[in-house]
């Protein structure tokens, strides 16, 4: 026994999981909002991706101690988040609902947050946070006069005024113009690179793609996929898909398509054209123009049958 004790280093490197969600479900009466989700978040930026109504806000609110899990547990910095105000010393949250007291100036608002966090130097902390979100210039205006994007940035400043180890943001890019969006993305990146745990939710794939390496995909209350963004992106491109194709010679095109490995079936209908079931979205869209060119067929129309984000998510659920 002693040999084992000696072989382990004196100071064991703590594998830091800032946020730990274990077998968490949340239901309201008969409605299941979140169904048995397990995830752990470490340093860096993570995107919480999913269609509207998938349960992203419910998950974030449980992490923020704003909701009690019906089953399972949520730990932030090793402590339970629910009924435990102490977690807020190391946690910042920006909720989706953008309610602020409009009579407060941006400065008042962030300073009040610093004071309520009981920081030793609230004025310096507020100044630093406001500079981080690039809002020093309009800080003395009442928040009721701010645009949606400005208000959003001030709320981010208030959430990170105490330099929290964990920052949760619910749809932070809503209402921001491209420049503000870029700035916010840089800010989140910088925080993640500095070793903080940043989790933001979004229903827009491109947003997540641009800033986070890791993704947690939630569909209909369940964790559909999680991990490296590129892996998930690949899953999304290499998924079976249905296209309708119209050309000047549908029959010949059908013959040529059937020879392709990426094509699972072709349905020929003189009225609507071809319905092609591709086994691989990426390869098929790549191969079709080449075939058309080689066979000298003019493709008049190519329509992906079901391109909604929901169907992409639904596929991910099935792929798990």
């Amino acid at each position: 026994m002693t040999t084992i004790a000696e072989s382990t280093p004196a100071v064991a490197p703590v594998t830091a999981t800032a946020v730990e969600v274990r077998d968490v479900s949340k239901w309201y009466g008969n409605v299941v909002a979140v169904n048995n989700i397990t995830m752990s978040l470490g340093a860096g930026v993570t995107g919480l991706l999913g269609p509207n109504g998938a349960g992203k806000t419910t998950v974030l609110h449980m992490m923020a101690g704003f909701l009690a899990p019906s089953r399972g547990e949520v730990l932030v910095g090793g402590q339970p988040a629910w009924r435990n105000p102490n977690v807020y010393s190391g946690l910042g949250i920006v909720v989706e609902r953008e309610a602020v007291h409009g009579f407060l100036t941006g400065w008042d608002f962030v300073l009040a947050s610093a004071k309520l966090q009981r920081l030793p130097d609230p004025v310096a902390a507020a100044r630093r946070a406001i500079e981080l979100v690039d809002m020093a210039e309009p800080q003395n205006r009442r928040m009721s006069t701010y645009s949606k994007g400005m208000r959003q940035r001030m709320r981010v400043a208030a959430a990170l005024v105490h330099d929290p180890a964990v920052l949760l943001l619910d749809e932070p890019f809503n209402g921001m113009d491209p420049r503000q969006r870029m700035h916010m993305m840089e800010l989140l990146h910088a925080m993640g690179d500095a070793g903080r745990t940043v989790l933001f939710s979004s229903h827009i794939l491109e947003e997540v793609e641009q800033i986070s390496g890791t993704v947690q995909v939630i569909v209909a209350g369940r964790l559909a996929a999680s991990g490296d963004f590129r892996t998930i992106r690949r899953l999304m491109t290499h998924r079976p898909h249905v296209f309708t194709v119209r050309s000047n010679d549908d029959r010949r095109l059908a013959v040529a398509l059937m020879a392709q490995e990426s094509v699972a079936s072709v349905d020929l209908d003189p009225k609507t054209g071809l319905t092609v079931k591709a086994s691989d979205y990426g390869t098929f869209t790549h191969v079709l123009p080449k075939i058309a060119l080689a066979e000298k067929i003019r493709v008049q129309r190519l329509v992906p049958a079901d391109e909604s984000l929901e169907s992409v998510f639904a596929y991910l659920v099935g792929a798990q």
Partner: protein
Amino acid sequence: MFNPTIARITTRALFGRLRFLLLLPLPLLVVGLALLTQATGVDPSDWVTPVIVAIGLTVVLPVLALIIGTGVLGSEVDDGTLAHILAKPLPRREIVLTKLVVAVGVTAVTTGLPLALTGLIAGSPALAGGLAVGAVVGSLAYCSLFTALSVLTRLPVLIGLAYILIWETLAGNLLTGTRVLSIDQYVLTVVDRIAHSTLISSNVSLAVSLSMAFVFTAGFTLLGIDRLRSFSVKGETS
């Protein structure tokens, strides 16, 4: 226990709310009525009960306490700004007690001063003193009740109004047994005992009134603190 930052923001929000500003002149109406009846030569023994008791103590005091008590916490629940305060490492006790101090203070001043003035108009400094103390006792009990309702239910104003109008006014007049559970009766008793005047009379004993007022205040304050500890913040869609 008391947080000056929360107190400042709460007070500013309260005085910026239309609902509150519209009701603020209500106590002055009682003063106006008192002045008018006194000026027209009506004897105080004839107008003290209908003006001070029936309007001042049973309507103006509880209604103002309702608007203020729900205004300090319920409004922040409604508009979602409560999330900012909840996401801070503050004991929930501190949040509720601070808001309660603001509510009780504002209610006691806005009702106590005008009511005391009507006592002076009636020519009785003792009645004035009784009304001032009664307003403080009432503010404590009512504000605790209505502040707690703000986190107990999504419809605090409606339920508070039902308590005032149905329980206290209607039931209190028809079923005398409910008087022991009516804050307005405790206030009336306190006013009566201090005023020591034939102008006013009460139905409940002082011991019962004071202990019940204390039970209301402490009970609902503790309940409010406990409910805020387990308060669920709703998202935009749910």
